[in-house]
């Protein structure tokens, strides 16, 4: 059985506006359910999205989405794509449901199906009660949800979200992130999220591409990173009797763990394959040691991002 093509395949992609090289020799294949584009302002995130959508023509190389070339098969590709732009974008003077229906029809849905889907997505994003209101009367948060609604109305298999939480208050931000995760977990659509907010990307993405000045600064598979980080433990101990701590340390070393002692009450351990946290607890019970705190040591996305920025000329 042939392997499915990557969601995004960048093949030396470059974009130049006049004398300004905006994207430079981007390479890589990404297949995660949710791919994050991170980078400081002006890094080229939005330009990359716009190029993948066919708004800008590559000046070098090319890119493929689901194995289809963005320039040669642009129209066919855009049938499968949903796009939520960063800035306000709507059609004035019409109700929300009519706007989304129009967008669904332009994507190819027959009028009846488009109307049905428009109502459904409005309830899905939580704007059901406001669907007959004129879009110009929507608040900023509602407009963000409206943009998401129009992006998913035609059931795309790839969703581009450009700064989806821009301008949202905390509850609205959480709702938006929940919706993105729901869509991701449904398995019906792959998602590409462009954001400069690390937490947003960390909360919904499995792969992260960090851009800086039009180049890939680093790539990080967050899902794997999380799995890997799960093997690092930091333990705070309270020994009931003299020597119990060292006995516990010896016991978990016996399980195959690498152990580093920070101080008398704190140790760090790397779990080998096959050893689970419950084995650590079992050893603690045997050695009469109380584990007061057990932390998975996680490398945060912020660490990865800052490392990438420092590696790239050391400037942020």
């Amino acid at each position, binding site marked *: 059985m042939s392997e499915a093509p990557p969601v995004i395949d960048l093949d030396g992609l470059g974009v130049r*506006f*006049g*004398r*300004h090289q905006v994207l430079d020799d981007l390479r890589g294949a990404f297949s995660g359910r949710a791919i994050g584009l991170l980078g400081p302002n002006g890094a080229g995130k939005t330009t990359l999205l*716009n190029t993948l*959508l*066919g*708004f*800008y023509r590559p000046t070098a190389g090319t890119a493929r989405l689901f194995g289809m070339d963005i320039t040669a098969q642009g*129209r*066919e590709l*855009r*049938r499968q*794509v*949903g*796009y939520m*732009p960063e*800035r*306000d*974008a*709507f*059609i*004035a*003077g*019409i109700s929300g449901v009519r706007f989304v229906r*129009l*967008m669904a*029809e*332009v*994507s*190819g*849905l*027959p009028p009846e*199906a488009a109307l049905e*889907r428009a*109502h*459904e*997505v409005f*309830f*899905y994003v939580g704007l*059901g009660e406001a669907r007959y209101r004129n879009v110009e009367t929507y608040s900023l948060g509602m407009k963000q949800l409206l943009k998401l609604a*129009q992006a*998913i109305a*035609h*059931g*795309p*298999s790839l969703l*581009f979200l450009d700064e989806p939480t821009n301008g949202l208050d905390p509850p609205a931000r959480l709702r938006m992130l929940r*919706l993105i995760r*729901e*869509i991701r977990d*449904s398995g*019906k*659509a792959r998602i590409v999220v462009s954001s400069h907010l690390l937490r947003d990307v960390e909360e919904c993405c499995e792969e992260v591409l960090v851009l800086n000045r039009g180049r890939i600064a680093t790539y990080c598979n967050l899902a794997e990173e999380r799995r890997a980080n799960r093997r690092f433990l930091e333990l705070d101990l309270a020994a009931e009797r003299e020597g119990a701590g060292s006995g516990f340390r010896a016991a978990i070393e016996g399980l195959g763990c690498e152990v580093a002692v920070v101080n008398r009450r704190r140790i760090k351990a790397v779990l080998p394959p096959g050893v689970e946290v419950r084995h650590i607890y079992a050893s603690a019970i045997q050695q009469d040691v109380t584990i007061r705190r057990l932390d998975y040591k996680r490398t945060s996305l912020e660490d990865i991002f800052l490392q990438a920025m420092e590696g790239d000329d050391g400037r942020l």
Partner: protein
Amino acid sequence: MAVYDHGYKGYDGPLMPARSRFLVISRYGLRDVFASRLFLAFFAFCFAWPLVLLGAMYLRYNAEALALINLDSADLLEFVQVNTWFFQNLFLRAQLYLAFIVVLVVGPSLVSADLRNRAMPLYLSRPLTRTDYVLGKLVVLGVLVSAITWAPGLLLFAIQASLGGREWLLEHWRVAPSMVVVSVVWLLCMSLPMLAIAAWVKWKPWARIVFMGAILTGTAFGSFYKEFYDSWLGSLVVAFDVTDALSASVFGTQGTVQMPEAAAWLAAAALASLSAALLYRRVRAFEVVK
């Protein structure tokens, strides 16, 4: 994704043909245009003159009806000559003035709001090209203009042909295609500049003012040039002179404007091409600042 089931679901139902996708934009555009009662009333008024002409044509061939209103058929036959001049000047010229108002009223609302509210990325991220978008908007104006120009013109022509008989039809057959050609050329020469101006100005009232300003300035400058230099070259920038010359060329009649046919066609083609290029330049997802 039923209303009661708030989970995300894809769509795997049937899709409409890609080639006719631009008609969605036209359909929505037309529905928005006719949502205005004021415009609907004006549009209905645009059919008043063709109805008057239809009445005159009917009376011309109905002696009984003429007797009822105490008119002599010979007088009417003399007064209302249904010939090329009737269709070219009495019918089409009047209707083209009304169509000008239709383009002036409807044109800016078709594109300026989309550009002002940044709707272009939403359209163009779908399987729709810039050409499809422009075509979709142009069809709205095309339908409206056609409905008050060549469509009723052909109806009048068909009725007259049935009343006037085979001889009349053979003598005036050229009138029917000429009405269509003049209307279509006029549509392109008015609609494309109107849409282009609306795309650049992005505000409806200003777009109308700029369009009217361009027409009036061209007319004033052209008229002055013609008078001062006694040359037809001034007519090149007078929209109605160009229309008259084109109309005369297509209908095969003697025009009122002293202007070579080729120059009129060239002026119309240049205006339409320049406007299309300007419009096409503006209708894009994002402006690239180099």
